[in-house]
């Protein structure tokens, strides 16, 4: 027998190829959690400064007893004010596909539009990083270095916030390891806690981002939560609305860029194209101007536990 029309023959001599690039793509694991909604939004300062100075005021004036019916005897009251700065800074990302990359993209999932999607997503991921970077600046702390997070720590954080007159709606952002420890601790709880439906619910894996509600607190998981104590611990945080604030400098790409080169644009970011004709490449750049700040220290408490 000879001259069979085999795959191997055609592979060697033409007619078949060793590998065909699939139009399907698999996305490797990453944490796409965006947590900007946990911060207060503040309109950016656009007039003369990149820093917005925000006044904080403490209310709660109570009346003083007058000396008598016909004389006051009191002194002036003035509301206590403090302030904080919210500064935005330039953040950017750049991708530089070549003409050949674009010429060969037909029918492929990895194409120019896909790259634009990655660039657009970067805005919220950056804000998540800028939020968790604030946690270490919070002065109150619960949890013990080197000891796994437990339900007791969650109660301690709630007690701490309650003592400061925080509202009921609380959020808690923890590292995946801290979430694992919380689940482990929940499994061993006794008493009234073990019969709560939300305690059962937190045991189920739900992936990154929102993990569920426990004791009225909304739990979020993010791998951006930083280490503490020379890598021994992770530093999560429980807080109420208003603990942290953010701003996004308003961009106006039409002012400086040829409209034809604006691939995407809103008031917070834009993707622009810059052509490098000599080298047959085009750069796609995202520019955004985020800023975050701790707004009120007593609205938050760090949760520092074993990493």
């Amino acid at each position, binding site marked *: 027998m000879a001259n069979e029309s085999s795959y191997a023959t055609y592979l060697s001599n033409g007619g078949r190829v060793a590998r065909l690039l699939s139009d399907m793509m698999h996305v490797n694991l990453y944490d796409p959690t965006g947590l900007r909604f946990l911060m207060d939004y503040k309109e950016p300062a656009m007039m003369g400064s*990149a*820093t917005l100075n925000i006044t904080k005021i403490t209310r709660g004036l109570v009346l003083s007893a007058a000396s008598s019916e016909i004389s006051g005897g009191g002194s002036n009251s003035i509301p206590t004010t*403090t302030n*904080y*700065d*919210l*500064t*935005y*800074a*330039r*953040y950017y990302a750049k991708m530089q596909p070549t003409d050949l990359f674009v010429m060969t993209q037909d029918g492929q999932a990895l194409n120019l539009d896909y790259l634009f999607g990655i660039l657009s997503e970067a805005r919220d991921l950056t804000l998540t990083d*800028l939020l968790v*970077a*604030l946690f*270490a*600046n*919070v*002065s*109150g*702390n619960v949890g*013990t*270095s*080197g000891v796994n997070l437990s339900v*007791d720590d969650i109660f*301690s954080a709630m007690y701490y916030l309650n003592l400061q007159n925080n509202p009921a709606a609380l959020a808690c952002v923890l590292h995946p390891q801290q979430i694992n420890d919380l689940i482990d601790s929940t499994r061993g709880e*006794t008493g009234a806690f073990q019969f709560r439906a939300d305690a059962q619910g937190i045991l189920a894996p739900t992936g990154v981002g929102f993990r569920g509600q426990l004791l009225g607190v909304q739990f979020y998981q993010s791998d951006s939560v*930083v*280490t*503490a*104590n*020379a*890598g*021994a611990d992770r*530093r999560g945080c429980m807080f109420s609305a208003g603990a942290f604030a953010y701003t996004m400098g308003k961009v106006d790409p039409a002012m400086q860029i040829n409209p034809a080169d604006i691939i995407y644009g809103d008031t917070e970011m834009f993707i622009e194209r810059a052509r490098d004709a000599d080298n047959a490449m085009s750069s796609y750049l995202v520019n955004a*101007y*985020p*800023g*975050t*700040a*701790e707004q009120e*220290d007593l609205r938050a408490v*760090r949760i*520092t536990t074993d*990493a």
Partner: protein
Amino acid sequence: MSSTVRISATGRYQRRQVVEDEGLPAKFANNPYVYVHYPRGFSFDDVLGEFLPDLNEGHLVAGVNGVEEDPRNPKILKPQKMFAGTLAKGGIVINTDEDRLGEWKNYLASFDCKGGGKHYCFVAVEFDKLPGGEAIAREAPNQFREFRKYIRDHRLCHEMSEPVYNKLVGIEESALDRAIQRAQSNPHLGKKVEAIQARIAAMKKAWAKLNDAQQEAAQPVQKGPKAPPTIRVGPGGASEVQA
């Protein structure tokens, strides 16, 4: 006339191995920071049996808590507003280049990461890079403990106050109450009760020692002319001088 010449080898062949290390994986990239201490930030260290200051990381990130980039050189960060906010909350910023840090001066190490970023961490931390590229940190709990002790002993942080101590003991006593309740129906938890009791005892001992040391350090220095020493003459003419 030519003759045979013996030639010796000039060296031994060694297979060349190029080890390329591009640094830590890109996800390790983070931002530099300074340690900050707040008045309530103390915890009991079971290994040393002492109270040590808890050090927070004040991250130096452009756009976070007022940290700015220098418009003339974006690589230089201006953290003055962040420092001012920290001070307003009662925090003490421990700058990396503080001379009083002694051997711990420049306590931050940096590692290169893939993609051009850097990983900043406490100077004693090291990494093992496994074949395949995964990196695992070798934490340095003992060195960090020594660092915190140094910060406390050299008064680079707040002194620990009695209300803070009372609060820390109160937390342990609450934990003890809970553990006792649980141990009533789960006798195997009795050891946890004993452990917490031992911890509370150690905390009390450590506080007594620390309180003495703090009070001694806080003694006012006597100014002005020194009072003449009192001389007591004992039997037989022996004299004793008291300052």
